[in-house]
């Protein structure tokens, strides 16, 4: 089959699978099987098609007439699309398998068929998003993605907070889509068509280009979860079932990144200002995301804030790459862009892994509150190990994949700072310590998350009773964990997948120059170091075993520093772990604390709780909603049921219109 047909067959087979799943109704198991098969089939087709383009470097596009106004049915594939298509489909497969295991534990299977149908529609529409070469088709796929994911988020709708969180998601995603519709409309207003080919040819004035960019930033940024449009993310991810959280957080939010990249590809050489803007908003998201992640007690919400952070890092890479491109530093641009693109895949992998394992833990324990978990590694060895691997990967610790992409971004930042002209250099230089701060905070945060949830003693009965989950869930975890390590240890190979897209974004045709100076050469050294680390660690572990051979090994209670009767509740909690980090920032982050201090010689009760409201909610969206509601309330007296007043409205309208239109 030719690559065009292969690519289109992928979403088509998913849609067929969705219909079949829907027909399964309450038979959850069958519907899940259908989804797994359809997703795998689509993944094979899609990756084959993508591989063809990535290998040959030759993209394709086809265009057919469509009866809708402004629309043509145009699809196509270039390096960027190929990379994202393969990424989406490859990650959907473990999510589907994990979902089968995960949903088996959920009681109500009434809507199981629909749930799996929406899962497949979500994957299919993401595939169409990256293939679309027409604005109308793009928007339809985009909204299909949003709606399908909304129905997945609302899965656990009997809990009121899930409903309100889902509403936030629904509205946020709609606002984003509105911005995109405006962007496409403004762009294609002269062309009379929204086909990308027509848009690409449309001449743009400086100001219009900026307006388009800002609209794209709002539209795509809100999907990607860039601050301050991220507010839906920490709400929707915890509400959703974990395989959906994994797919949304790992894959779907990257569609926002794809959108930004596609926008940049289509709008021609970007001005430097866009690079600065992306760098800034990326840094804001990265730092803010990780800070608020630290403040969370809800494991899945913590992971969601880390998605904000990582999307921020990706955007920083993109911004740095564009800046380097405008400064004429091709190799530097390639480094940053490859890092940004590779981080898309990497974050997809380790965030899926974390949601798989974290979700398994929270499902087994029946709570997402970390203060009630603990000691799960002993009870769920595979899940725990997977989470630790994911934690190491997301903290960009070598030899995992996260380090490789962050290293590429660092390389872009450092080299850009060293080689770039004045302003570019200074800005990139300032970004370096910010990224380092993010790294340090992320490490603290995941030390907290993995430590509090999986290590130590269980803090509640539920946590103590946890059991390892089924192979349906553990096998996807193990596979993604291996993939995390694999990308880290075979980075030059992974680089070949992203290089075509990075070349397109950097506006260069060959990456030969880059490869030797900054790219594959140093990267293979990084990989070498990763292997060395593994070898050294193996030696040390072997050495340790040798030393301990035949020695007396004994077990004893943990040393309580002289305190004789420690309980599991006395362990350091998530909140106390984060306290030294958050305390210096309390003026910035405005926690709401509730304390009841112990009083007297024999204190009876004492309690402490902290809650960190999202700053974007607190300063932007909540006031806006309040204002809107107040405004709406102020209009209520206009409709108080009095007929005479109503008639007066009619007359006054008539008089006013005549006065305005005829007499004036």
């Amino acid at each position: 089959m030719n690559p065009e047909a292969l690519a289109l067959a992928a979403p088509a087979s998913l849609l067929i699978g969705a219909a079949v799943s829907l027909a399964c109704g309450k038979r959850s198991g069958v519907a899940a099987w259908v989804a797994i098969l359809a997703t795998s089939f689509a993944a094979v087709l899609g990756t084959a098609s993508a591989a063809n383009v990535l290998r040959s470097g030759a993209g394709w596009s086809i265009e057919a007439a469509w009866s809708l106004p402004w629309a043509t049915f145009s699809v196509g594939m270039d390096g960027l699309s190929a990379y994202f298509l393969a990424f989406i489909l490859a990650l959907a497969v473990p999510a589907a398998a994990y979902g089968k295991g995960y949903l088996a534990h959920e009681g109500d299977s009434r809507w199981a068929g629909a749930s799996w149908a929406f899962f497949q529609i979500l994957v299919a529409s993401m595939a169409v998003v990256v293939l679309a070469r027409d604005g109308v088709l793009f928007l339809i796929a985009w909204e299909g993605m949003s709606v399908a994911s909304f129905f997945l988020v609302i899965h656990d709708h009997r809990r009121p907070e899930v409903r309100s969180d889902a509403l936030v998601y629904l509205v946020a995603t709609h606002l984003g889509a509105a911005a995109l519709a405006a962007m496409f409309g403004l762009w294609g207003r002269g062309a009379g068509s929204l086909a990308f080919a027509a848009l690409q040819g449309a001449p743009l004035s400086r100001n219009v280009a900026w307006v388009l960019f800002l609209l794209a930033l709002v539209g795509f940024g809100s999907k990607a979860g860039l601050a301050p449009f991220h507010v839906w993310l920490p709400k929707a991810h915890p509400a959703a079932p974990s395989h959906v959280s994994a797919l949304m957080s790992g894959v779907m939010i990257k569609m926002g990144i794809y959108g930004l990249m596609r926008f940049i590809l289509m709008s021609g050489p970007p001005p430097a200002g866009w690079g600065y803007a992306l760098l800034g908003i990326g840094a804001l998201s990265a730092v803010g995301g990780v800070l608020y992640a630290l403040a969370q007690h809800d494991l899945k919400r913590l992971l969601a804030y880390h998605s904000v952070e990582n999307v921020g890092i990706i955007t920083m890479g993109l911004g740095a790459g564009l800046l380097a491109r405008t400064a004429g530093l091709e190799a530097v641009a390639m480094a940053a862009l490859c890092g940004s693109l590779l981080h898309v895949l990497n974050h997809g992998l380790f965030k899926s892994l974390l949601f798989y394992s974290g979700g398994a833990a929270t499902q087994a324990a029946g709570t997402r509150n970390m203060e009630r978990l603990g000691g799960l590694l002993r009870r769920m060895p595979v899940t725990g190990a997977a989470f630790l691997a994911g934690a190491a990967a997301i903290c960009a610790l070598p030899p995992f994949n996260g380090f490789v992409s962050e290293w590429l971004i660092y390389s872009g930042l450092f080299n850009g700072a060293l080689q770039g002209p004045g302003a570019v250099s200074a800005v990139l230089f300032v970004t370096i310590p910010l990224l380092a701060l993010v790294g340090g905070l992320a490490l603290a945060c995941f030390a907290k998350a993995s430590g509090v949830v999986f290590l130590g003693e269980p803090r509640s009965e539920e946590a103590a009773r946890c059991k390892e989950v089924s192979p349906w869930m553990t096998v996807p975890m193990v596979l993604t964990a291996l993939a995390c390590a694999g990308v880290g240890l075979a980075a030059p190979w992974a680089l070949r997948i992203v290089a075509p897209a990075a070349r397109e974004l950097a506006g260069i045709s060959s990456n030969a120059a880059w490869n030797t100076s900054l790219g594959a050469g140093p990267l293979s050294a990084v990989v070498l170091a990763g292997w060395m680390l593994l070898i050294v660690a193996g030696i040390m572990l072997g050495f340790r075993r040798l030393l301990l051979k035949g020695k007396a090994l004994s077990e004893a209670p943990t040393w309580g520093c002289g305190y004789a009767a420690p309980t599991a509740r006395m362990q350091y909690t998530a909140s106390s772990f984060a306290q030294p980090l958050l305390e210096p920032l309390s003026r910035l982050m405005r926690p709401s604390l509730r304390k009841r201090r112990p009083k007297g010689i024999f204190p009876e009760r004492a309690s402490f709780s902290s809650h960190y409201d999202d700053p974007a909610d607190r300063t932007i969206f909540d006031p806006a909603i309040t204002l809107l509601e107040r405004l709406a309330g102020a209009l209520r007296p206009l409709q108080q049921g009095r007929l005479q007043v109503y008639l007066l409205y009619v007359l006054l309208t008539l008089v006013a219109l005549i006065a305005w239109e005829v007499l004036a």
Partner: protein
Amino acid sequence: MSSWVNAILVAVLLLDLLLSVTSRLSVLIRGFAVQAAGIAFLALLIEGFDSRHAWIVAGGTLALKAVAIPYFLNRAVIRTNARRELEPLVSYGTSLLLAALGVLLAFALAARLPMEARRAGLLIAAAAFATMITGLLLLVTRTKALTEVVGYLVLENGIFLFGLTLLGRMPLLVEMGILLDVFVGAFVMGIVVYNIHRTFDHIDVSALTTLKEDEP
């Protein structure tokens, strides 16, 4: 003939003032009926006694508006036992003042409009406007359901007065359709008023405010 026309138009204007000050429903209904009869007569005067079209329109108007509708409305007054409009939203003095201002406004408007086919001159436009304004005044300021109905009918009278200038241009069927609509409208409104009376034991529409938007 023009003097007859003018005389009737002046009568229509005076009736407008009367309608705006009376508190008695029976006077209101009778005033409306007389006005409608005058308009029917005007149709003949303007179009000419030899026009069959005019005769039919005049006859229809007379029969429906001057006889049938007042008859139904009077029956409704008796049934609903609402003889007086006791609590208008503005006092009768103000009402009169507003009506007088309305008449002035009507003349001002009529003078400004380029009257095509000035067959009846300025006065007919002024009377039409004044009658419309009076009808609207009744609609906006009165609280009894029946007064509202009469207000609507007076408004309709005013518009019909305009229509007289176009009598030749309209197919008869349309003219009759309009008349029929008004008649059925009054009839349906009468039924509703009767039901309001039966349901609420009054026909004070200012009390009909269940359907509204609650203030938050």
